[in-house]
């Protein structure tokens, strides 16, 4: 864990039951394109969160494990230095890894260099095919992306901004609990918890000190991820 981290997320793998509600909520909140049957079948479905499912053991003694993987908002992100036009860059204020859609030229280099494989590419103008009433569901706070650009999880930065503006209007700092991204809000088993990692008394900081928070995902690469996974002990002997 790095001292500079501001926002952080804790995912309790014991609580995740793989229901994919977070994926749906994320798609609605962030105007993520629906790619259609053919492209989804070809492996181009766009989701900012993917639920990895692993089976352990042989039938009937089988344990299923789920791991939601989204952008880890690396403090030292591999996608940032490779972008020739600074479309992928580091927000020093929020300590997030942000993607500037209208700056992206579509080299897809960041997608190759992301060790978590969480970056998504807009292969076509998917939003253009949205039939008439359905386009009203678009979130006005989020850009509808066009073809040829990269996108990825933003930790719902539009919600972070809104909370910060509200806090500023009230003349205070933003507090833990002010912001909830769509996935954390939707998660029925409260497996996803989001908050201020910079505040040692916040819920995420509290959870991050849990004995099950042993390693960060691909910590050995030095990416300094901001998502903390609580190890699943379900199905194992305590």
């Amino acid at each position, binding site marked *: 864990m790095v001292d500079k981290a501001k926002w952080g997320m804790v995912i309790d793998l014991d609580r995740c039951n793989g229901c994919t509600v977070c994926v749906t909520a994320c798609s609605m909140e962030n105007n993520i394109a629906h790619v259609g049957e053919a492209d989804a079948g070809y492996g181009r479905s766009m989701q900012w969160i993917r639920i990895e499912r692993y089976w352990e053991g042989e039938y009937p003694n089988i344990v299923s494990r789920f791991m939601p993987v989204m952008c880890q908002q690396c403090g030292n992100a591999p996608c940032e230095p*490779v972008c020739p036009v600074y479309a992928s860059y580091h927000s020093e204020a929020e300590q997030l890894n942000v993607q500037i859609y209208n700056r992206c030229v579509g080299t897809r280099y960041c997608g190759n260099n992301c060790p978590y494989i969480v970056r998504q590419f807009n292969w*076509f103008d998917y939003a253009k095919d949205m039939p008439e009433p359905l386009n009203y569901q678009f979130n006005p706070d989020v850009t509808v992306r066009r073809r040829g650009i990269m996108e990825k999880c933003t930790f719902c930065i539009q919600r972070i901004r809104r909370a910060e503006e509200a806090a500023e209007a009230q003349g205070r700092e933003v507090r833990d609990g002010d912001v909830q991204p769509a996935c954390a809000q939707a998660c029925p088993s409260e497996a996803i918890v989001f908050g201020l990692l910079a505040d040692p008394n916040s819920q995420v900081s509290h959870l991050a000190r849990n004995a099950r928070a042993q390693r960060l995902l691909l910590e050995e*690469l030095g990416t300094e991820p901001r998502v903390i996974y609580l190890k699943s002990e379900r199905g194992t002997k305590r």
Partner: protein
Amino acid sequence: MTAKAMPFPKGEFQEEEDPQEHLLFDPRPREEMNQMVMESMRSTTGPFWVVVGILTLLVLVCLVGAWVYMALTGMGVAGVRRPTYWGMFIANFVFWIGISHAGTFVSAILRVFKADFRRPFTRAAELMTAFGLVVAGMYPLIHLGRVWVAYWIIPYPNSRWLWPNLRSPLTWDMIAIFTYLLSSTLYLYLPLIPDVAMARDHSNGWRYRLYRLMALGWRGTEAEWHRLRTAIQIFAFAIIPVMFSVHTIVSWDFAVTKTPGWHSTIFGPFFVVGAIYSGVSAVVMILFLIRTTLANMKYFVREEHFDALGKLILVFSFTWTYFYFSEYILAWYGGDLSDQYVWDALTKGPYAWLWYTMLICNIAIPWLTLWNKRIRRSPAMMFAIGFIVNLGMYIERYLIVPGMISRNRFPFTWDEYTPRIELVISVGSLSLFLLLYVLASRLIPLIPVWEVHEGQTAHTLRRIGKTVVPTKSEIE
């Protein structure tokens, strides 16, 4: 110019063969060679125009048409998908950059080392460099998701003070390719000046006007020759580091990342060796085509040249093999699981058939054939071997680009890739290269006559008693 006669080095010349088989020991008058080269440029037969027509059609449909279609609909018409974000376009880019290395290698390095067998085909190789770079330089653009804003990678002053990211290997690439294109074009042009001046003096009409423009008023005075030789000498030395840096930088596109398989410090020299390997093989293919299709070329391009290039290919095959397996051994010795995934995919996984084909093309066939002098001296056989080596090297690039990124640290996301419109555009770009070459073969003298002439004056057969001793003068 000072001349000093020396016995021809042993080994380069076998006792039993006829010295007249060597171009440099079989001199013809300068004027006769001029006429031969001029005739090869002027002869445009019916089949020539058919070839030009077919190639133009292919370029218009497969390259321009398919590219415009892709830009208008979206990158999705290509086969790339997550996690294989780079596909055949980037493999083609690396391949054509590799082809473009041959010209500089053959021309500059052999010139610096005074290898005289290079003389008749330096220009043919330099043209490959220029046209290979044109094709290679297109691929990063073809591959962009939003090609209409590609100029954002160029540093230009703008109202927002946004500059390209100089930490990105793609920005280095852009700079390296521009530098190489510029310097290799100049390097192609300098030795061309005396030859276009010759062509100017032997032609009339539009050709005369074109060559007069290109010859820059060359008259062939001693001072002009002196300056030209100095300039060529400076360029030959200066372009070698540029050539090595270009492919090293291209390899850094891969080596700088954290992607398993790509993350390797050996990539710089490995890519340079691979580039020269495929490039020299491509020179052999081009020389065969020139020899069989252009008039009077059997005099200039001889079996001895195929022989010499065959030896070069064999040496580069050894070097390439060493680098390839060094990379493999490091991955094995390092014991990183993600590297193991990549190599398993190549050796036992879905790419195994390509991997073994590559080993046969790049190692087995050159090693089993090129030791044989009879095979090396047979242009048709050398053409076949050049083709096989280039096929193998293309597969190698394909395995490195979409092959290696189809495996990563998350087995859940693994996915292979099938090229779609990439195949069409690849055919189009190959046609563009061939079209440019075919047109150039009728527009500029493909044989540097003055260089051949210079070599022939330096090489003489002297009769000492009953034996004929080939001698070579040092030209300074």
